[in-house]
């Protein structure tokens, strides 16, 4: 695709500065390269000292790395944000209804919108959750929706993350570091605040206590442990909310309740914000080889002794093979047209789509339906003949396991790289919170940036970086 057809967040399509970036453009012009170099070093030191690191898998065990932070913010206007917010709420609301439905009456299947086999034969569908009523009817308390922009006012949803989405701590720390390094930027630009995210999260979690819980319920964050890639975030959220950060070894099940071991004996937990996959949460019910969870937790949960956030079994709604159905899911439950578009998606399980994908693999992005974090995908235009052949074989062996999408012209944003300031592709992950009484989102989200020239892979596990994200007040 030609470079000039790519929308730039700062320069649009025609190279003139878009008005939300006026302040930043001035600042970039007025600040010398030496100052930027110093500030970037300071930012790295700050992240290093605060310990905002993530662990890289497949590397030597427990390698901590910094996520590269770029000091040029990504900016959205209030009107743009209003559209995004409405679209996000609409999408998440519909996905909640979808989950409630497939675990109860399954009307969407009977209506023929989503095939029964697609849901019931999917390993992410948890029969254990059938007819379980979750508190407040909320399945997805925290959703991270990956959005990309292709043009002025045109946003697409690339992916839904409805299991244990991560990245919100980077969103918050990026802002804290920016405010520390460049305080005057925040007096010159009216940037909507985001620091109240943890208090919103706590409020939403406390709203979904199980029946019979005390007035002052106990909330805890559950982590797989310090060697998990997102451990910093788990600790950060527990600290910001002022709740305990627990591991499986701290918990046990007794008398149809979940307890944590404290210095003064057992204490009951009412709401568990768990950052563990379904598979690992209870070795008696799911994967017996995973020892990070709590034996018997599923049974306590099913009997209403504790609330899990997110609910068990939400993976069926964010699976990449479900993604193509989401616009119809929105129409079915809400009777509305989707505000945010999907990206055109070919399902390799359909013969016509598969034939097209196999013929055009060099122009497409191929993804494993159950993969995440940028692992297990092929970027056609950037791939070698061998990689293309390998994916052709993978698709032919397991057509249902793959989808493909056209390579999108993700928007770019000016970014500091070795050659100076250059455009790099970005996406956006806003975090949508749902409680008993409604939904909430802080303005903005986490902007991820692909640091390689022309690269479209923004995942931090694949060398992507992050930026502070601003929503300007009117």
């Amino acid at each position: 695709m030609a470079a000039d057809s790519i929308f730039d967040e700062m320069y649009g399509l025609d190279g003139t500065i878009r008005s939300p970036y006026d302040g930043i453009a001035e600042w970039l012009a007025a600040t010398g390269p030496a100052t930027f170099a110093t500030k970037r070093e300071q930012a790295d030191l700050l992240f290093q000292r605060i310990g905002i690191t993530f662990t890289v898998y497949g590397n030597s065990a427990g390698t901590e790395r910094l996520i590269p932070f770029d000091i040029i913010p990504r900016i959205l206007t209030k009107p743009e944000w209003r559209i995004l917010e409405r679209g996000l709420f609409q999408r998440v609301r519909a996905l909640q209804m979808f989950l409630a439905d497939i675990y109860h009456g399954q009307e969407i299947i009977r209506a023929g919108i989503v095939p029964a086999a697609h849901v019931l034969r999917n390993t992410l569908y948890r029969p254990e959750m059938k007819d379980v009523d979750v508190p407040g009817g909320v399945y997805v308390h925290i959703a991270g929706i990956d959005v990309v922009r292709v043009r002025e006012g045109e946003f697409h949803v690339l992916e839904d993350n409805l299991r244990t989405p991560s990245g919100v701590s980077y969103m918050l720390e990026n802002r804290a570091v920016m405010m520390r390094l460049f305080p005057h930027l925040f007096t010159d630009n009216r940037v909507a605040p985001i620091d109240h995210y943890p208090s919103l999260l706590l409020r939403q979690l406390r709203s979904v206590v199980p029946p019979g819980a005390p007035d002052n319920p106990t909330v805890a964050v559950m982590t797989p442990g310090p060697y998990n890639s997102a451990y910093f975030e788990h600790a950060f959220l527990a600290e910001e909310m002022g709740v305990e950060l627990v591991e499986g070894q701290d918990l046990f099940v007794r008398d149809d309740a979940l307890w944590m071991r404290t210095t003064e004996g057992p204490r009951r937990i009412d709401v568990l914000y768990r950052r563990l996959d379904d598979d690992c949460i209870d070795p008696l019910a799911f994967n017996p080889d995973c020892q990070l969870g709590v034996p018997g937790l599923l049974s306590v949960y099913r009997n209403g002794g504790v609330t899990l956030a997110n609910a068990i079994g939400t993976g069926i709604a964010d699976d990449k093979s479900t993604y193509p159905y989401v616009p119809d899911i929105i129409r079915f439950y809400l009777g509305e047209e989707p505000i945010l578009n999907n990206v055109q998606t070919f399902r390799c399980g359909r013969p016509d789509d598969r034939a097209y994908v196999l013929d055009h693999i060099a122009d497409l992005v191929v993804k494993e339906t159950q993969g995440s974090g940028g692992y297990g995908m092929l970027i056609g235009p950037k791939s070698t003949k061998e990689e293309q052949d390998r994916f052709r074989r993978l698709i032919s062996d397991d057509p249902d396991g793959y989808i493909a999408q056209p390579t999108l012209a993700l928007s770019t944003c000016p970014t500091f790289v070795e050659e100076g300031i250059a455009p790099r592709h970005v996406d956006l992950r806003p975090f949508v919170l749902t409680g008993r009484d409604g939904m909430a989102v802080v303005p903005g989200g986490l902007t991820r940036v692909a640091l390689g020239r022309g690269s479209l892979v923004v995942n931090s596990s694949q060398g992507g970086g992050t930026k502070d994200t601003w929503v300007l007040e009117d």
Partner: protein
Amino acid sequence: MLSRTAEQLYWTGRYMERAENLARILDVTERLAVQGRQRDQGASEWHAALDILCAEQAYNARYGDVGEAGVVTFLTLDRENPSSIYSCIRTARENARALRSNISSEMWESINTSWLAIRDMTDTDLQTQGLREFLDWIKVRSHLFRGASYTTALHDDGFAFTRLGTFLERADSTTRLLDSKFHLLADSGTDPAANYYEWGAILRAVGAFRAYHQLYHDVITPIRVAELLILNPQMPRSLRFCFDHVSDFLETLCAGRRLECERMAGEFCAQLRYGRIERIEARGLHDVLMEVLDHVAGLSAQISRDFMMTV
């Protein structure tokens, strides 16, 4: 609080204190080795440093001959030695990382900054910097962590567990240091000059040189050094001082519950409070100090039973 958190706080306190104590032991060893009157005293001081830490075997297996260069490396930057200063900071930092949500950000940053500085340090860096400089730096890092704990953390149960770790580790270290030096310097007898240099070095290493003179206004004698480091209630590295605090923190933690650890600490505290150095000398200093070590170990185990294995 979570039992695991209590345990990790306790060990964070212990390991930071251990790093500082190692620095102090190296400090006194180097001072004594440099001013040794007999030609072989230098070597015996480096032996003693290993002996204090019960580390001679581990040392011999990897280094062979005991000498300054080997012992300094072994006790400071050796990545493989689990009791080196490097390993203590690494362990304290790993614990602190797991505790992120339970300690103040300034406590975490003080530990993490220490770790980032020592992480890539080489023997050459250490030589360039100078041993004494390095040891002073370690002491400062420990002071900084303690200061951050005192002034930025809630003085709640978590604080009490961190401090328990600090004081038990310190009591253990003071006991070992005293015992080793009494043994090694037994033959200096009553030579005032020898006493001044040798016991003076020990007092300096534990930061008590001035305190000694303020309290006794007299020449340095071994038995008064022992009195100061065992029975003095105002000397922060004395056993009495450590156990007064251990006892207080346990009282807070027990909050009216009758737990065995509190009784044990109280009983031992009373012995120190009403003890006399002449009686201790008559019973044999070495025997008394060995009892103290047993007591520290026993109390540590009981604290674990009372708070960390509650369910």
